[in-house]
């Protein structure tokens, strides 16, 4: 293309008049035969029996959920499984007013919360329902609402959501990640 100004693409004569390529699509897909590890498998299988499993650190007894086979603070392997109750408190939360595209049965606003099970050092994600969203608060005690027994699979989806127990709140200074450290300080003082 003779006479092209600076910055324009100059094509060789043989390509003059040819429709320019505006975009190229090169779809990419990789498949994996993925095994999530023995600790994750125990965790998922336990869900099928309405049990929640954590891993206890050999260093200081901190219980991690979900179990990953390692204490990430110390880089130490964990093999001790512990059963955790299906009760805990809201360590932190967020109220969302936008729907998730393609997800049915989730009315807005919905409350995503960091659920701290009794006895666990860290929280994990859950949905809080069973009360108006403006009543959800840090420290609110909750329990799991499970799918009916006939519908249980080996999946975290077995817990439909978490609902308030009505018990007194966990005080703010003991809520969330503070709970594990508060317990330890009391042990040290005692």
């Amino acid at each position, binding site marked *: 293309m003779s006479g092209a100004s600076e910055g324009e693409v100059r094509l060789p004569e043989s390509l003059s008049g040819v429709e320019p390529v505006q975009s*190229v699509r090169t779809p990419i897909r990789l*498949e994996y*035969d993925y095994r999530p590890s023995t600790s994750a498998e125990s965790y998922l299988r336990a869900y099928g029996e309405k049990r929640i499993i954590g891993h206890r650190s050999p260093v200081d007894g901190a219980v991690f959920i979900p179990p990953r086979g390692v*204490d*990430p603070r110390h*880089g130490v392997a964990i093999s001790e499984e512990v059963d955790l109750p299906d009760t805990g408190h809201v360590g932190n939360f967020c109220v969302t007013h936008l729907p998730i595209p393609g997800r049915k049965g989730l009315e807005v606003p919905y409350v995503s919360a960091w659920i701290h099970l009794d006895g666990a050092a860290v929280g994990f994600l859950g949905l809080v329902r069973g009360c108006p969203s403006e009543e959800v608060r840090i420290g609110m005690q909750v329990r799991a609402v499970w799918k009916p027994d006939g519908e249980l699979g080996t999946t975290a989806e077995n817990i439909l959501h978490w609902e308030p127990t009505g018990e007194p709140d966990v005080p703010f200074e003991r809520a969330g990640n503070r709970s594990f450290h508060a317990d330890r300080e009391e042990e040290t003082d005692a």
Partner: protein
Amino acid sequence: MREVAVVATAIHQVPALTDTTEVQLMVPLINAARDAVGLTQAEIGFTCSGSSDFLAGQAFSFVQTLDAVGAFPPISESHVEMDGAFALYEAWVKLQAGEIDTALVFSYGKSSPGSLRDVLALQLDPYFLAPLWPPADAVAAIQARLLLEAGKVSGEDLAEIAVRSQRNAVGNPNAVRFSPDMAVADVMAEVPVADPLRPSDLAAESDGGCAIVLAAGDRARQLCGRPAWIRGIDHRIDAHGLGTRDLTRAPSAELAASVACATADLAIESLDIAELHSPTTSQEAILVRELGLGAATEVNPSGGALAANTLMAAGLVRIAEAARRIIDDRADRALAHATSGPCLQQNLVCVMTGG
């Protein structure tokens, strides 16, 4: 140049890690390397790792693997989406800057859950080559064909490389393919996978990982009786497009080796051993020629990457295997090589000595 040495190594390679996650693989390796020199993570100045999300099938998978380090209290850390040998280079640069005296380098690859030949196709250019999904073996076979047609090597030469690798790998606990009595005729009788490459011409794929501790100057002398001093290290890159290169050559390997040897003030002929990261026998033949290795240098005493090729770790394993032989006083002058990209596109050379 600041004196920096490899003071500890740990390697683990197996045909496939089915029950073990990358984190569970690396916990004992990282601890073994640190324990060998009595360092805790708090005493490590910088941590650098190499791995690939394309193997893990997860975005930011390396962040999870940091759980194996014990990154609390918070640490100074970096990651490269490359073989761990290139992570070691980054740590070496950091040590040269003089702010730190110790570094931890690790890398790992668990390719067994996916299809390695498809994963490797995605390192090719995205417009012309990757959409064709050429298997990595076929791409390497095109290079091998050129080498044979140019008369630079014969099929028997390649078979001899395969036989040497399998023989040297006997007794190496981290080799996944070895044989004390395989002969050239046995290799020549194999049915080619991607003609002209036969199964023994192609690396035995493995899952695994490697961890190395680096230390500078007197700190290295305190930690290790006989550190493997890095006297020269360099990495260079050839053009990405396969059609733009003479595939029978690897100029970037030649340049990296000559720079590393010049920095080390060593003649290439004076090396005792060379650990080469060659995923095929044909690529090993190219590397021996480009580096100018002589008859006095033992090539791949561990069996090399042909005996176990853990993608993202095989290059760092070469450095570890070479360093071990210096630390154990089995060698005094060693070269370790790592490659990345299709057909030896990128090459790193690390020259180490005991004195």
